[in-house]
């Protein structure tokens, strides 16, 4: 047991954040312990592998007593694009997130000849995130093709072809590049159905890879959701699991409205079961029931929130986690129903605090659920660009520990 406060003599292990056999990188949280002063998340001092746990959760250890054995590996144990912790732990069955994306595209291309798919490096190379291999070979160059590095042209072509009878799916490689397609999305796609008085809709899906944690720096790690939440006429879909990714991408392609479909880069290796059940856009899901506090999040944030909810059980706090799945339009009913039960709302948004969609969820809660509300706040990223260096980026992103500790501090032990 490491010395975590000046006066501590022993501490209780609340939660192991790594299981036996799991590797960890320097700086990654290993366990949560309760000392005489506080609840502390202990982070690894080097890269390594947890070989065995000697003191289980709930157990107490004296200062200096061995609580586990480790093997130091000396090399980065976790890949930069590591999967989310919750689903990774038993990711034996099912398919990974990127395969779910590919399968959804494959099925959509097979089901409807009007569906075409294009973007930079998506066809012959199969996508820089390897999300779309084999589609070009299967459907040929008129339906699946590579474009120049010309976001204005490819988004404009998506709009023009959608209002002339096709149902295009385009990939904008990194969400950060969506700044280049703003005109097509904001000025053309989102308004055409309105301007034609409902005569012609714009069935476009723009897939884009978003989010931090990949060590890509300030301009390849952003979460561009809030850039678009103020644009009526655009749907924003943000799945967190392979099952949802597949079903929601199918639903997005079948939807007659323009859809921004966001794929978090730290979910691509996440494995999970998929099925053929259809999911409608605009429906959130309660992915963990609980009675004390509602955590609303999306994409990677859902997994951080689930991990936080697990940690909070040690403090006697029973958190409900709501996965929004679609950020525009918001599923107000699911949020308000949960709030009615828990009376406390935490919105976890990977994205800058100011102007984010988390504020919209809080506005919804105060406007329509004020009577149910005992506490509400946002956990988001600071209002700064995203730093590159791993410890800086990790500290920037709203991780499970921060979520758990903020909730524990604000609710107190139950």
């Amino acid at each position: 047991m490491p010395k975590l406060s000046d006066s501590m003599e022993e501490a209780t292990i609340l939660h192991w954040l790594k299981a036996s056999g799991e590797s960890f990188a320097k700086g990654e949280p290993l366990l949560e312990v309760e000392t005489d002063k506080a609840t502390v998340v202990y982070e690894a001092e080097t890269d390594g592998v947890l070989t065995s746990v000697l003191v289980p959760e709930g157990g107490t250890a004296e200062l200096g007593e061995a609580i586990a054995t480790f093997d130091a590996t000396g090399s980065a144990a976790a890949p930069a694009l590591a999967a989310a912790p919750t689903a990774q732990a038993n990711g034996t069955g099912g398919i990974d997130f990127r395969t779910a994306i590919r399968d959804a595209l494959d099925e959509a291309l097979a089901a409807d000849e009007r569906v075409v798919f294009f973007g930079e490096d998506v066809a012959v190379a199969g996508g820089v995130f390897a999300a779309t291999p084999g589609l070009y070979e299967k459907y040929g160059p008129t339906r699946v093709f590579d474009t120049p590095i010309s976001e204005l042209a490819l988004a404009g072509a998506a709009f023009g072809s959608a209002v002339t009878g096709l149902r295009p799916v385009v990939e904008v490689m990194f969400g950060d590049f969506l700044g280049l397609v703003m005109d097509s999305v904001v000025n053309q796609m989102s308004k055409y159905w309105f301007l034609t008085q409902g005569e012609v809709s714009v069935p476009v899906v723009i897939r884009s890879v978003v989010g931090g944690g990949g060590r890509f720096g300030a301009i390849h790690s952003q979460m561009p959701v809030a850039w678009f939440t103020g644009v009526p006429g655009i749907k924003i879909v943000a799945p967190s699991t392979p099952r949802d990714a597949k079903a929601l991408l199918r639903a997005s392609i079948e939807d007659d409205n323009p859809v921004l479909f966001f794929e978090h880069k730290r979910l691509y290796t996440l494995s999970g079961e998929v099925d053929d059940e259809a999911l409608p856009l605009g429906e959130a899901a309660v992915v963990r029931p609980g009675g004390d506090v509602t955590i609303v999040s999306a994409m990677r944030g859902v997994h951080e929130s689930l991990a936080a909810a697990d940690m909070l059980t040690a403090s006697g706090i029973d958190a409900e986690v709501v996965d929004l799945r679609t950020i525009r339009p918001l599923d107000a009913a699911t949020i308000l129903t949960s709030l009615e039960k828990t009376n406390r709302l935490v919105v976890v948004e990977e994205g800058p605090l100011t102007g984010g969609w988390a504020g919209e969820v809080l506005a919804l809660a105060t406007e329509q659920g004020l009577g149910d509300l005992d506490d509400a706040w946002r956990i988001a990223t600071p209002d700064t660009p995203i730093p590159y260096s791993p410890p800086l980026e990790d500290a920037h992103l709203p991780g499970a520990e921060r979520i758990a500790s903020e909730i524990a501090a604000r609710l107190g032990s139950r």
Partner: protein
Amino acid sequence: MTATSRVEFAPLGDVDLYVDLYRRMRLIRGFEDLVQSLFLRGEIYGTTHLYSGQEAVAVGFASVLGEQDRVAATYRGHGHALALGVDPQKLLDEMLGRATGINGGLAGSMNVTSPQDRLIGCFGIVGGSIAAATGAGLALRATGGVAVAYFGDGAMNQGYFFECLNFCQVQKLPVVLVCENNGYGEYTAFEAVTAGPIRARAEVMEVPAETIDGMSVWTVRDAAARAAGHARSGNGPYFVEAITYRFVGHSRSDPGKYRPDGELDRWRERDPLVLLRARLEQEGVEGERLEDLEASVEDQLAEYEERGIAAPFPEPQAFSEFKG
């Protein structure tokens, strides 16, 4: 008679067709005059960008397009719309903000759409029409249809132009790009902000390109036939720079003071309506037939005005955000 009318031309061929094109051009000019007058009387709101002087371009190109073709136009788009056959009453009612407008009063002058008339829309963002036509070309590739993009010389310096022209060429899309070079991007002379000849920008991508007299409708029609034929045959895009001139300011708030003295007068001598009328008379069309035609267009416009002013405004209502 202008100096131009003394030049000898090959016969027009189908004179009746050109009489009809003259009628359309006359309608556009009269329509724009009416819009200007209604604007000054406070009946049309916001802003307008008039097509007066450029009629030969839209009418010449529209004369070679078929049912399967599509057009993306600019915010100077009343002429593009009327050339395609958009109902002038509905177009005027749209300007007037009436419920009977082509878009129910939702669009106004700059954002008119009329898919049933093959008009994808008028694009209020400079260069947006090029992107829309590129996408339409993608959808039309398998059908034999052609997509036409109209844009001004100002759009030549937009990313949309370069990106889409390259995209069209590598994908061999059936897109005809028509640059209406009227000499000014808004208030600024195009030479002041444009490096090198416009046409060369297409030629460097090995896109066939030509610069034509955009004031002479028969010249435009011939070039349009070449361009559409090239695109329709699966050869990829075609670029036409039509040299033209707007007889009015950029928008309703622009008196056009940046024009050098005498420039407008010199261009007015090459008014596309004057040129075509002279040509038709040369070909033996009786002046009386043309005068009757002009009078009938005037009468029509007076009726459009009367009906438009009498039409109801839309009731405020809640609109759906999404198609359900």
